[in-house]
């Protein structure tokens, strides 16, 4: 890792150079106004310095034209800033469909990371160059924040909530990974390293742990271990084909409504099963809140997703990403332009 003197951080994601361009624009605007105001003040205090103690300057009321100018010109400039920043922000919240999904769980004081093929790591994140990566983040305890300065990205990691951030690594190297939200005594030690590797090196790394099992397989074992199948599929609601479909439920206020069975719904149904009862079924499922860790919940969700027909395909395909559209062999993308498979959902 480069630890020498820096004035500007290295840029290693598709969004980093966009953020830097915007920042340079903001610096230019700031410098203009700083020079304007500092220059005016300096000129006035020299030009109009008190030459005699008896001086009595003329009264100047003000100028509506000037007031309107310095109201609306800055307003227009801030509109540009807003739109430019909003554009980057919105793009940064819409991962492409072919992004591979990596799970990140924050807990006091470490990052646990889980790759779709099953390899797990702590305080380190290996990602392949040129591949869109979507992180799904949650916390086991307090709020953390997953920040990679070289990628110009961060996202709070909130207990009870799945948040996400996505990026395309554009530069091979090792970069800092920080917890940016104060989380207790060893907040400053909740750091790690992001390794951006060539796709081949990443494949090699993935194969480095032969015992690794994909989350959906781990989930399948949990499913059997806790006897879930003794109800689900028999007299409990069936789970096959459930993920991503609408479900009729009665919520905690007794109101009947339709929700989509997404990750948040599945998590809630595992941990707090009595909050939303599927219509037509009794409120009988026990809570697994004190039994399962957030990692295990994610494993179970991946298993349930795999039941919905989304096959586990290819090293670059997260299990949750629907039917495979990508070739399954790890075609090195290093020769492609970094944004070759970047598109937004806008």
């Amino acid at each position, binding site marked *: 890792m480069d630890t020498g003197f820096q004035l500007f951080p290295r840029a290693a994601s598709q969004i980093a150079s966009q953020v830097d361009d915007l920042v340079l624009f903001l610096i230019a605007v700031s410098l203009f106004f700083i020079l304007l105001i500092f220059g005016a003040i300096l000129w006035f205090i020299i030009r109009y310095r008190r030459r005699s103690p008896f*001086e009595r300057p003329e009264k100047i009321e003000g100028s509506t034209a000037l007031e309107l100018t310095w109201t609306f010109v*800055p307003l227009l400039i801030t509109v540009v800033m807003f739109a430019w920043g*909003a554009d980057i922000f919105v793009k940064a919240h819409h991962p492409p469909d072919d992004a591979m999904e990596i799970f990140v769980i924050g807990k006091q004081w470490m990052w646990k990371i889980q790759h779709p093929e099953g390899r797990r790591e702590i305080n380190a994140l290996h990602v392949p160059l040129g591949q869109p990566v979507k992180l799904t983040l949650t916390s086991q305890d307090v709020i953390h924040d997953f920040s990679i300065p070289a990628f110009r990205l961060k996202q709070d990691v909130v*207990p009870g909530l799945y948040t996400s951030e996505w990026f395309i690594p554009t530069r091979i190297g090792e970069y800092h990974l920080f917890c940016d939200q*104060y989380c*207790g005594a060893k907040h*400053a030690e909740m750091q790690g390293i992001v390794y951006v590797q060539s796709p081949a090196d990443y494949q090699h790394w993935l194969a480095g742990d032969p015992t690794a099992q994909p989350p959906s397989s781990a989930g399948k074992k949990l499913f059997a271990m806790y006897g879930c199948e003794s109800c689900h599929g028999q007299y409990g609601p069936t789970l096959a084909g459930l993920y991503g479909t609408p479900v009729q439920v009665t919520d905690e206020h007794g109101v009947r409504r339709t929700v989509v069975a997404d990750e948040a719904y599945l998590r809630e149904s595992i941990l707090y099963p009595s909050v939303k009862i599927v219509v037509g079924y009794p409120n009988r499922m026990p809570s697994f809140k004190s039994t399962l860790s957030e990692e295990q919940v994610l494993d179970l969700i991946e298993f349930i997703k795999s039941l919905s027909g989304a096959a586990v395909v290819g090293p670059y395909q997260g299990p949750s990403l629907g039917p495979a559209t990508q070739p399954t062999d790890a075609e090195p993308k290093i020769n492609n332009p970094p944004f070759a498979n970047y598109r937004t959902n806008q």
Partner: protein
Amino acid sequence: MASIPFIPEYTVEIYLNERHTVASWLLTKDHKRIAVLFMISITILFAIGGSAAVIMRLQLLTPHSTLVEAETYNKLFTLHGVVMVFFFLVPSIPATLGNFLVPLMIGARDLAFPRLNLASWYLYISGSTLALTSLILGGVDTGWTFYTPYSSTFSNTHVILAITGVFIVGFSSIFTGLNFIVTIHKMRCPGMTWFRLPLFIWSMYATSIIFVLATPVLAITLALVALERILGVGIFDPALGGDPILFQHLFWFYSHPAVYIMILPGMGVISELITCYSRKSPFGYVFIAMSSLAIAVLGFLVWAHHMFVAGISIYGGLVFSMLSFLVAIPSAIKVFNWTSTLYKGSIQLDTPMLYALGFIGLFTIGGLTGLFLATLGVDMHVHDTYFVIAHFHYIMVGGAVMAYMGGLHFWWPKITGKLYPEVWGRVAAAILFLGFNLTFFPQFILGYLGMPRRYYAYAPEFQVYNVMSSCGASILAIGYLLPFAYLLWSLKYGKPAGNNPFKAAGLEWTTASPPPKHNFLKTPIAGEPYAYHEMDFSDV
């Protein structure tokens, strides 16, 4: 009492020597004495908060310093934040200069509710005592933001004691705000129409509105944290069925307007200083006055810009980004108007003016870097880094504290009847300006490089800027100690000030320095404010 050094002797009866007993101070209902009580109290708290900062800057001299442990460092930045925000910055100008000057500037004998004013000081003392007790018992490690569920469930430090202190001191603010609003509405002297009010009064009025409307939300929020922490009622902790982001909404609904509580009074001070030392009425009086109110109103609509990466919806982010840019406009209007006030003036660079010009420069930098943070795409990178730390210190220290220092010097002769040594004043102002920039400018770069806030140890490549910052902090410390020394010295040895040593317009300068017990010997009649073009400077 006369044997105590630093207590000046006065030949005529004024508010300071009207009675000398301790009880006459502790039970006083005179707004001027209460202002002095506040001034002494917040100076002590500032010294405590500042000491914590000194230890932090020493710790950060090297990447892996072992001066203090991680837990101690976390308690230090919590102490620094809690004390400086709730016990120094929020009451600083309103409770001291505001308390002293609001009745004097509008030609009143006192505030509308003198007993409420005294109660406000006792609440301040009770709140700060509780907060300091939590320090003596071992401290609090949540950060001044008290984010849940860390504060409500996980931290095993004295959170309840500290938030009770903050809860109580909030009512001190509410009392002060209520008092100012009623006083400004009902007790203006003959001739003092709304648009003849000094701009300091307009800013106090805007601040008071925020005091009264925002502070109760903080009290409610902290009470909810206590409820969860003591009784385990699930409000914020998801493990109890709560929502941690709800806390952030509630907390910033107070704490963002609180930023304007801290800066609006400073803006009011600057308007008085700029006009006096350029002998000009303010350029665009109405625009400066109304922009204070605009800031107070818009300030309530931008809270979620602290939460762009907290897990709120994209649309929430877009709306709050846009509103945050809007609140920048009235601040820009003020800066342009202050600068234009200098045009064709008669400018004298005395100590208060140096602080005022320093304020404009530092506030401009603080405001412009605020635009970086309001820009969604940039906030994703710099949020919760030293960039934020640098930005808000430019506003809070470069802005609010500079203004407080400027105002303190400007009205010191009015408050004490004594002149401070002008040369020392200018030297200290210059040292403060240099020390401040050296301390906090490198932190912008640190933040952009990615150094997170609240780290007791950091990656080695951040060291250069941290060393610069710590050097700056030592200069800054000298800049604060100097005025403390010569202002105390001036109490005993300073030259008598006379009614109006700086030839300033404004009713407060028409009465004696220090003012008599009831401010004016006969009810003043207000004319046009800032009538420098009609003033007689021939006897200077």
